[in-house]
């Protein structure tokens, strides 16, 4: 075990997997010589060379489409898309290419990982602060993961690289400097499709993704001061969902709050809410509460940005409201 930052944990995962499997290669903008704008790929070009760690032109559409076919022909590409806000540029590759071939042709695999980072809170403005989880989670055939802790970041990235199908790997710009203990066991994987209960509670279940897990944990502290026992579940994988974890928790608490940093309308939280009603309607003692970004752009100035981002206080308020 070693204490390391989230970005370092990702770096370690990439290094270990590249050492383990020569078909793994990285490409993306600024990831080589510079080591990535968030330093996730730092030092890897020196270790693995310019063929396996490629700086690319600013060509997201082609890069994503290339990742699809490169993965079909014997390599395991890991593509970095610098901001989740650029995901619309790669959607054709995901929707019209990656999502169809396993079904149409059946004898192909597409072991590529598309890493990107999203979310607000860093003053990056309306084109560099979004969480577009629902856009990718909407697509059949694409797995979507969003780790919160450094340990999960490492374990899930390793699982994603070894997976035989496309994985979109969602990071968050405010998580890169988060420090925590990470195992140095190169064979330790975190399975895709398994949620994690990060706080056990009895009165209300809070289901959260990415950085919102941290806010939900703070919300649980606030609720505890009121004598409310909140359970916090880090979904970790956005698709496929860990239904057992969701149903199990609601069966216990009968109250659900779903938290996602994306937009509300047709958002990821909406899907969670609908899924809960599909599978646990009769266990609900109150409507599912959603805590999301309002349906508007993320503003720039600090008080404006803080006003739209979901936070612990809003999550706690939502939990209290469901319990009223």
């Amino acid at each position, binding site marked *: 075990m070693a204490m390391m930052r989230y970005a370092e944990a990702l770096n370690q995962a990439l290094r270990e997997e590249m050492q383990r499997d020569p*078909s793994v*290669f990285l*490409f993306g903008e600024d990831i080589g010589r510079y080591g990535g704008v968030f330093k996730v790929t730092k030092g890897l070009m020196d270790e693995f060379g310019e*063929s*396996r760690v*490629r700086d*690319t*032109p600013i*060509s997201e*559409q*082609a*890069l994503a*489409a*290339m*990742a*699809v*076919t*490169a*993965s*079909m*022909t*014997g*390599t395991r*590409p890991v593509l970095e898309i610098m901001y989740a806000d650029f995901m619309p540029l790669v959607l*054709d*590759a995901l929707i*019209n*290419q990656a999502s*169809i*071939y*396993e*079904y*149409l*042709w*059946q*004898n*192909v695999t597409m072991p590529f990982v598309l890493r990107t980072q999203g979310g607000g809170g860093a003053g990056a403005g309306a084109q560099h602060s979004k969480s577009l989880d629902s856009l990718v989670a909407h697509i*059949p*055939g*694409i*797995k*979507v993961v969003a780790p919160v802790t450094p340990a999960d970041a490492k374990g899930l990235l390793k699982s994603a690289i070894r997976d035989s*199908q496309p994985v979109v790997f969602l990071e968050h710009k405010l998580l890169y400097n988060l420090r925590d203990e990470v195992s140095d066991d190169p064979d330790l994987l975190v399975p895709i*499709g398994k949620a994690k209960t990060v706080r056990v509670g009895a009165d209300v279940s809070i289901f959260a993704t990415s950085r919102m897990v941290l806010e939900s944990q703070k919300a649980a502290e606030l609720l505890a001061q009121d004598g409310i026992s909140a359970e916090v579940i880090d979904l970790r994988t956005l*698709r*496929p*969902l860990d*239904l057992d974890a969701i149903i199990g928790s609601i069966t216990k608490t009968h109250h659900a709050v779903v938290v996602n940093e994306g937009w509300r309308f047709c958002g990821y939280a909406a899907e969670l809410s609908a*899924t809960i*009603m*599909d*599978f646990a*309607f009769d266990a609900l003692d109150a409507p599912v509460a959603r805590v999301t970004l309002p349906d508007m752009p993320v503003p720039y100035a600090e008080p404006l940005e803080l006003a739209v981002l979901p936070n612990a206080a809003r999550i706690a308020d939502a939990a209290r409201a469901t319990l009223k």
Partner: protein
Amino acid sequence: MKNAPSLDEQLEMHRKMFVVRRLEERLGELHKVGKTRGPIHRCDGQEAVGIGATAVLGTGDFVTSTHRGHAHYIGKGVDIRGVTAEILGRATGTCGGRAGHMLIGDRDKGMIGGNAIVGGSIPAATGMALSIQVRGTSDVAMCFFGDGAAQTGICHESMNMAGLWKLPLVFILEHNQFGLTVHHSVQSPVADLSIRAAGYAMAAEIVDGNDTVAMYRATATAVERARRGDGPTLIEAKTYRMQGFSTSDMGGYQSEADLADWNRRDPIQVSRLALADSVGTERLDQVEAGAVAEVDAAVEEALAAPLPTFELFTRSSPYATAPEAV
């Protein structure tokens, strides 16, 4: 370096062109009597491009195609019976009826695959070439695309990277003059799109796309260049689309004069003429009759084959993740 086809290869290209032509004609007939499904994009008149270019490749090489890919499929060695059954939506099709004529893929034959997002084949082949380069093998990727697809942004992105990284890639620009109904002169300020290659430090050549031998020669040079590690080539094959955009095309935008002109340069006639002296018309008739019989048998077999039955696709977890709530 060998860049001319042997007589046997030339005759085989002739045969394959005839197979494709017969298939297109049979599909046209079947469409008229309502036995096909959805639009079908025929490549009558363009057969020499796909057949001539793919004749150079081995099975380890990869090809990406377009929505108009029948000559590419047959050229790359995909079984005519599977292709025909797939086009007719049968369980016995190459893809079990799931894909249809625009999206046929056959991984074992290196045909991966048809692509009905115009321009989609260009980064697809570029990604395969990147994979080849990373793995360090001597295979090549070949990309078929049209003059319409050449106007997409992703074409520029892909060619830029192909030139930048000297990827083992051959771009075959199947220039059939039309993007759906719009003539290329209304889509591009230049007649010869291959001049763009200079901007990507890429070799380029303009070829008579109705001449299989010319296609073979140009492609052979390009493939050798790619295998040597000297980077991509853009081959602009000039040809003409004789049967409209698809079976649902109402027509009316192609001039009779142009059609007649190109009809005189029909690739099968060009090929026949080139072969007549060396193999004799009797042999050619024999080969063509064999091709007709092969296609007709494939059509009859497909029509008699069972339709596929639906199964929810749940092999991978992110497909059909949330079955209907009970």
